[in-house]
């Protein structure tokens, strides 16, 4: 049904919709924050907000990588395990005298290498991302444990501990890194050729191929990016804890990252979504965790409530967008 006037409404509707998709869950975030403040009386204090942003930061970085992957219609289940292995390598390298700062590039390098391996298998051997990254989730967990002989590695004099515990002009470094990741991701997705290709591959992979886009290279990039950001997450974890444990660190982080992306309104089949939505999604998850603790909800109930909130929030979002898009 297209005449000039329908096009006109389509334009405003499309604009309205994209604004809403971008804002998507912002109202939920605000309501949660206010609600927790009313219940606990101290949620919106500067001190607590600083804690929330730090808690959100690692998940935000992982979720940014996950956004790239999900935008192409894929999934990366291995980020939690990659984070653990990267953190192990980071702490082990940091123990080398004088050149401990090399722990940062070493950890990020491990993440990148894992991502590249995922990407090569998925894009050139054309195996399903779910299976491939499920395999690397398990394998990388084993490697992370192997690296420390299944023990926790410590470094009380971690040379890059400022990342986990310091701040710049009062803003925690963790939050700065997370925000920088979001801004860079936004730039890649919305301002570069590569970003357009990512959306195109997710929207219609076969059409992308016929348009001359090298689809395997785009897929290689997104999984590499996700691995690299998992490596960054590993540095952030290690810096915060002065330690890493191959068994426990990063357990089920991939699920939080996926939840953040989906809460942020990115389509699970690819092609539609925004990095700002992911940021809001990650903040919602952090606000929930923090707020429920402040209110005094038990650990067990936190899981149940978080799960329900994710489902209800996404359901509301879909319902609302469906109402809008009906033509």
């Amino acid at each position, binding site marked *: 049904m297209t005449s000039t006037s329908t*096009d006109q*409404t389509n334009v405003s509707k499309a604009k309205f919709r994209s604004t809403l998709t971008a804002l998507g869950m912002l109202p939920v975030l605000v309501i949660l924050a206010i609600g927790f403040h009313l219940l606990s009386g101290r949620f919106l204090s500067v001190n607590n907000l600083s804690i929330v942003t730090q808690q959100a930061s690692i998940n935000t970085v992982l979720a940014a990588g996950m956004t790239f992957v999900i935008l192409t219609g894929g999934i990366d289940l291995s980020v939690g395990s990659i984070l653990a292995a990267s953190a192990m390598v980071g702490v082990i390298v940091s123990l080398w005298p004088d050149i401990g700062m090399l722990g940062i590039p070493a950890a990020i390098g491990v993440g990148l290498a894992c991502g590249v391996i995922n990407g090569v298998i998925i894009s050139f051997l054309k195996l399903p991302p779910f299976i491939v990254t499920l395999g690397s989730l398990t394998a990388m967990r084993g490697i992370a444990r192997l690296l420390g002989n299944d023990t926790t590695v410590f470094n009380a004099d971690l040379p890059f501990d400022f990342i986990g515990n310091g701040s710049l002009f009062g803003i925690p470094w963790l939050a700065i890194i997370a925000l920088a990741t979001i801004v860079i991701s936004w730039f890649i997705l919305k301002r570069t050729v590569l970003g357009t290709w990512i959306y*195109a591959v997710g929207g219609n992979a076969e059409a*992308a191929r*016929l348009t001359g886009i090298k689809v395997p290279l785009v897929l290689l990039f997104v999984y590499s990016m996700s691995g690299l950001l998992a490596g960054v997450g590993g540095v952030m974890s290690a810096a915060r804890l002065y330690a890493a444990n191959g068994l426990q660190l990063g357990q089920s982080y991939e699920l939080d990252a996926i939840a953040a992306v989906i809460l942020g309104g990115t389509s699970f089949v690819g092609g539609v979504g925004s990095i700002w939505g992911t940021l809001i999604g990650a903040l919602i998850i952090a606000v929930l965790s923090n707020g429920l603790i402040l209110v005094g909800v038990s650990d067990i109930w936190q899981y149940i409530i978080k799960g329900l909130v994710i489902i209800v929030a996404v359901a509301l979002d879909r319902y609302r967008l469906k109402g809008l898009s009906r033509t």
Partner: protein
Amino acid sequence: MSEAITQSRIPVLEMRNISKTFASTKALTNVSLTAFAGEVHALMGENGAGKSTLMKVLSGAYVADQGGTVLVEGKPIVAGDPIKAKANGISVIYQELSLAPNLTVAQNMFLGAEPSNWGVVDKAAARARAEPILKQLGINFGPSQLVATLSLGERQMVEIARALTTNAKIIVMDEPTTSLTSRETDRLFEVIAGLKARGIAIIYISHRMEEIYALADRVSVLRDSAYVGTLERAELSAEKLVSMMVGRDLSSFYKKEHGAPHQAARTVMSVRDMADGYRVHGCSFDAKAGEVLGIAGLVGSGRTELARLVFGADRKMSGSVTLEGRELAIAGPRDAMDAGIAYLTEDRKGLGLFLDMTINENINIGIIGRDASRGGILNFVAAKERATRAIKSLSIRTPSASINVGALSGGNQQKALIARLLETKPKVIILDEPTRGVDVGAKSEIYRIIDELAGSGIAVVVISSDLPEIIGIADRVLVMREGRIAGEVLASSDQPISQEAIMAFSTGSASKVA
């Protein structure tokens, strides 16, 4: 228009004063439609005229505005309830078939209404009920066959069989022949005749004039969301229908000016011995600068497959492509595009467009790697200018370059896709069914674009199943049959390309060069 017939029978379907408003747009204005038992009532109109909206009101997918009523056998039915509509005997077969390919024919036929005992599906009952229906339709596959193994034509039969399981009184068919072979189309027509004989009313949406002649008892035309009129079978004429649909006459359609024969023209692309070892066998041809080369042949004769091999979309087994004297090494579409070959896919939604992306992005995506960007960073100004220019030169009707391409009508989507190809500055452009699913207005604009491209020295290759179309626009027609080029038909200065010659080659009743 003809009171005598209308009064003598009771209509099985009456849609009265149907209007439908979306936000501020009127998609239908006071449309009425009447159908009698045992008639084929064709519904025509350009894309966007309101046919689909009207049918969605009928099927219950949309609720019409206040004041409109739908009556089945004289009784009003509840608006906006697809399940009730079905129970009232209304069945709609959409262009995109809605079958589950992983299930059997019988499972599909009873999908959502499985015969069961206490929730356990009664497979024997389903088969027993399916078999007589399939037999009535003269179908030669069984109820336990997987739908995935059926051809498109056979799947359509399953859709019709499904409609019959619910005792449909009114069956709507939305361009049912779009992807059928001519044999399957004949088969469909036989089935439609059978349905008529059983007193079922068929509302048949189509753009194809010959189908309307073959089938329709009456034809109603919609234009710009409004009802224009209804013609009885005796009053049918192509000129009348076209002028009702567009308010223009037929002569402006194929406006190809057959100039001098292009024998002397320079050969731009030579394809030699192209084969995939499967559906294309040793095809060779030349495309010349400034000519429109048609490729005709029946569906399944290997036309699309040949084009995809030339473009590098599929892997070839043997064969070479030479462009302006240089043999190309084409490993994929990117190589072909870089060399100057562009290919318009026959499936614009499935393989061409990015429906969630804007017109601007869709037009620029083929070249943003180079022209519209600097060092990998998007140059929005250049891209916007380019898109705006393309929208203007191809007259794509849209208020803005920044709306999603999915919101455009079929014809405008097609033009946006052609715009993308033109931005790659091709020397050879292969258009695969460029006017499929496009309304008459957009069709003539696409013909104009093809003429202009040829005029500017590009070699244009047009694959088409529409014989009058290919005869109207091509200088020379290659006819494919069973993966080979069966013959070539030329236009001479005093005689146009003959439809008979093309048919003779494509059916195998003539051999080699006419």
